[in-house]
């Protein structure tokens, strides 16, 4: 049990997929315009990560080594399609604002990376907690980035105005603002790490 908790928590801080492993940045930057988008994307990616980790760890003994990557991709793509169809049905607004980045979860390096690095070598329970931890870590990172961007870019968080008289800096809602925020955040986390050692 202690081991499982460790698998879960490592994805959140020590091996955070976005800030430490620097994986899967395309969707992170593209959809982090608002916190609502960030949460939506995070939940979608967590679902795909969890589902694909479970299935990959279940079938890991049956897949021949040579064709494992295509097999993983098919498994992942199936879950992405499920997510895509559910999102279209139950929240079309979110689907429209995430756009082509929903099908692009297939090529998100985090999902394939976990399948290849963890789920294909470990049993069901630890793969489940690993997937969940990575998903939560990814979602938290998305929320952090999108909160900074939404606040600076439009002066709001989740659609609520925080301060009166705050003049928004529009560039943070633009692509270049996203790159700047992630660059500075990565530098900040590096600084913290260097301080510790």
């Amino acid at each position, binding site marked *: 049990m202690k081991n499982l908790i460790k698998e879960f928590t490592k994805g959140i801080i020590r091996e955070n997929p976005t800030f430490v492993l*620097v*994986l*899967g*940045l*395309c*969707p992170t*930057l*593209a959809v982090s315009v608002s916190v609502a988008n960030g949460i939506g994307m995070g939940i979608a990616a967590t679902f795909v990560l969890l589902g694909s980790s479970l299935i990959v760890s279940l079938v890991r003994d049956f897949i021949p080594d040579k064709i494992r*990557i*295509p097999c993983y*991709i*098919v498994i992942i*793509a*199936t879950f*992405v*399609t499920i997510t*895509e*169809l559910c999102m279209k049905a139950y929240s079309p607004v979110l689907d429209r604002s995430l756009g*082509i980045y929903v*099908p*692009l979860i*297939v*090529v*998100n*390096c985090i999902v*394939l990376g976990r399948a290849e690095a963890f789920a294909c070598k470990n049993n069901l329970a630890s793969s489940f907690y690993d997937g969940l931890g990575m998903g939560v870590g990814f979602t938290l990172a998305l929320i952090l980035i999108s909160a900074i961007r939404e606040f600076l870019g439009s002066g709001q968080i989740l659609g609520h105005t925080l301060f009166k008289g705050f003049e928004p800096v529009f*560039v943070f809602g*633009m*692509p*270049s*603002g*996203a*790159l*700047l925020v*992630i*660059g*500075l955040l*990565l*530098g*900040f986390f*590096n*600084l913290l*790490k*260097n301080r510790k050692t």
Partner: protein
Amino acid sequence: MSLQELLTIFISAVFIYNVILSRFLGLCSFIAISKETKPALAMSSAVMFVIVMSSAITWFVYRFLLLPFGLTYLRTISFILVIATFVQFVEMVIKKLSPQLYRAFGIYLPLITVNCAVLGVAVLNIDMFFINGKQVAGSFYYSVFQGACVGLGYTLAMLLMSGIRERLELCNIPKSLKDFPLAFIIASILSLSFMGFSGFKF
């Protein structure tokens, strides 16, 4: 199909909606391989070739398999499978025909399978050139042309970035900003300058 439309696609794919700097597709390879100009160019040419070919292939798959049989919801699965198979095939052919080129491409070729730009362009083509399940006139040519333009945009961004990062090697950079963080900050400034194109209209 008119020259004006082609020009619009060209300008918007290369400059206004540059794959990397404004759509964020293929960002991982962009950050990882842009340290020197030579591998950056090898990667860009490989990506461009794969994007053009996969735009053509996915168009055929969508038009003649998915649309007539009402299977459009299988778009993601079928596209990624086709792209992965195609990349594997190209790798085998190049290995057989020209070991020299194979060595030049090295690990970049298999990496392209998980490059979001390839799948992104395929999905984008379908979104743009098939409206309500009907193809726009000349959609095949538009798709392939857009693929080529996106590849050009990728090459342009790669070249700019690797040129800048080569010069950075000699600079004195704060320790915590080295490599990734600084690369992102430079990309941000590049993207800011590309925003200047966004007023272009034809």
